[in-house]
């Protein structure tokens, strides 16, 4: 196993590539941003949104998909206060909100004075989708990722609002893209990266007995509908410097609150509040599959932002990546699954490039031992 020479991502991390010097595509993509003229980008954005302003106030100017997290606050602040647009906020509610995150969301729409489309699928369906997501894709939160990248587009098509303003282009984290390429939202990226190739029909099967009628919110608009409205999804992160820590500071000014209890699997306190499992058991499954977790994600981002040294990053990985968080038991109760079933299925998900069995225990190489390989 190799790790990036600059951050703490392992070679097997999803969609990463390494260059000849052993630096990951994420770090390369990040260092590429040094050449970006942010003043010019901002002007480009101002010009771009001008075309989408509703001239006669007969419709919203744009959609902002929001969860109510720190980044949502930042997006709404920029769109409403700086770009002076009239946005419609859209949320997919995957039933995983922590109380404090729901309060944050409510506070956000009120403080910025926005209309809000809050979509909630049926509870029974979502419990089934949790179970199926885990069994089928190894991710109980599959429905959440799918909902987040489907509902706003459905709303855009139905309300005929062409412009969708997303936040960070998360795909520059793994370096799939350079910011200078100005990637926009595409159906292929949705299908492949967010839905990981699974489709609605994969969830219409015998065990949970879900039908098409239960999954209307998963029905992505047709190409013709998209074309007719001219739906286009841009990323704010392509036009201004994106820094989660900075967004957190802005969000706090507008009343954003963090939970009293820190997370068990990461040191960051303000990320992923909108979903109780996102930093917890959902992320633990990533560790089960690929051998790294949220602390690797957060530490790598903070190393790239100059907030942590690599050595400090490795400490975070060592401290958090392997931790089994308590929300596992909340989830097992929620979907009525035994812990034994859970662990048995987990073992079927392990990536062979990462995990091996020694004395009947799963083990893997670790970043804090990487010096051993280079030792004489």
């Amino acid at each position, binding site marked *: 196993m190799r790790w990036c020479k600059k951050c703490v991502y392992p070679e097997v991390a999803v*969609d990463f590539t390494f260059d000849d010097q052993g630096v990951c595509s994420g770090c390369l993509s990040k260092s590429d941003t040094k050449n970006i003229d942010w003043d010019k980008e901002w002007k480009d954005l101002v010009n771009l949104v001008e075309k989408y302003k509703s001239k006669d106030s007969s419709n919203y100017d744009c959609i902002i998909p929001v969860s109510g997290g720190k980044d949502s606050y930042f997006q709404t602040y920029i769109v409403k206060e700086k770009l002076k647009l009239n946005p419609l906020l859209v949320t997919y509610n995957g039933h995983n909100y922590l109380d404090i995150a729901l309060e944050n969301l409510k506070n956000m729409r009120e403080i910025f004075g926005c209309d809000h489309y809050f979509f909630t699928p049926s509870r029974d369906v979502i419990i089934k989708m949790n179970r199926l997501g885990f069994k089928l894709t190894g991710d109980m939160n599959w429905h959440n990722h799918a909902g987040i990248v489907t509902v706003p587009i459905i709303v855009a098509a139905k309300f005929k609002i062409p412009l969708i303003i997303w936040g960070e282009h998360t795909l520059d984290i793994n370096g*799939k893209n350079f910011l200078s390429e100005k990637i926009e939202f595409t*159906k*292929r990226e949705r299908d492949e990266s967010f839905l990981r190739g699974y489709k609605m029909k994969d969830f219409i099967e015998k065990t949970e007995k879900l039908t098409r009628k239960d999954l209307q919110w998963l029905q992505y608009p047709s190409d013709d509908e998209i074309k007719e409205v001219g739906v286009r999804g841009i990323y704010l992160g392509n036009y201004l410097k994106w820094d989660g820590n900075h967004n957190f500071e802005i969000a706090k000014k507008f009343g954003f609150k963090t939970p009293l209890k820190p997370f068990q699997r990461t040191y960051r306190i303000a990320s992923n509040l909108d979903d109780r499992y996102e930093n917890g058991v959902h992320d633990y499954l990533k560790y089960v599959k690929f051998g790294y977790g949220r602390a690797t994600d957060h530490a790598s981002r903070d190393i790239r932002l100059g907030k942590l040294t690599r050595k400090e990053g490795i400490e975070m990985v060592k401290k958090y990546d392997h931790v089994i968080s308590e929300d596992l038991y909340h989830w097992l109760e929620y979907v009525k699954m035994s812990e034994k079933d859970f662990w048995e299925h987990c073992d079927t998900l392990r990536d062979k490039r990462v995990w091996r069995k020694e004395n009947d225990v799963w083990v893997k190489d670790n970043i804090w031992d990487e010096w051993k390989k280079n030792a004489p």
Partner: protein
Amino acid sequence: MKSNLKTRLIPILLYRDGLIVKSRQFKLFQTVGNPFAQVARYNKWDLDELIYLNISKNKNFFYDSDIQTTSSIGSGIEILPKKKIDVYEFVKLLSKNCFMPLTYGGGIDSVEIARKILKSGADKICINSHAFKDNKFITDCAKEFGSQAVIVSIDCKKKLDKNIVFIEGGKLDTGMDILEWIQKAEALGAGEILVNSIDNDGVGRGFDENLCKLSIEKTNIPVIICGGAGQAEHFYDIYKKFKPHAMSAANIFQFTENSYQNIKTELKKNKLNIR
């Protein structure tokens, strides 16, 4: 030569060890994803043609469903093979799921392989390194399959104002000037020439004008120019100046929704004679 037909716009997909990638100057390869997902999108976008190039590190063709665990595992195609398959099975699957003329290239170093690739469903083959090392290969392929089915691909790099041909995925400097090789390839029976600039590859700052001018004006067969398109204007500029038979690019078509049709609409709005 300049084209008096409608100019074609041809996306290229780069396949590298099981995944579609974007390339930057033949050095950095960024993951795009599943080998078939973008093909499925292109089917909907009504492409003139598609060029699918295998640029794997692995000398032997490599497809292994295991690698898909890191990416998508089923999008765009009903059945993704759950086992290792060889290049012919792969091309068969590809052509079955590709509703536009398909050119396949990469690793073709014998007439026998070329024949099997075409038999598997590709409409044309694209050859590069082996054609350079064994010139007769071009003639043999042209005789066997007809020139129209043979694209000779040429990668070149600037060296002291000269455009030098590189082979083996840009790794081997042949020392030969592109003009010499282009004219030779034409005489040997190439049906079309695909010219790519290694320096401009994936950078998105526009095509290499000098290279386009050279290759288009000094040949009598269609030239497909490639390397550097980052926005619709880049196609526009090069069309206005040289009117090539075809313009191609890999990365740009994967950046935005419906990019292919949007770029075509943009060019047609400016009254370009685009197919």
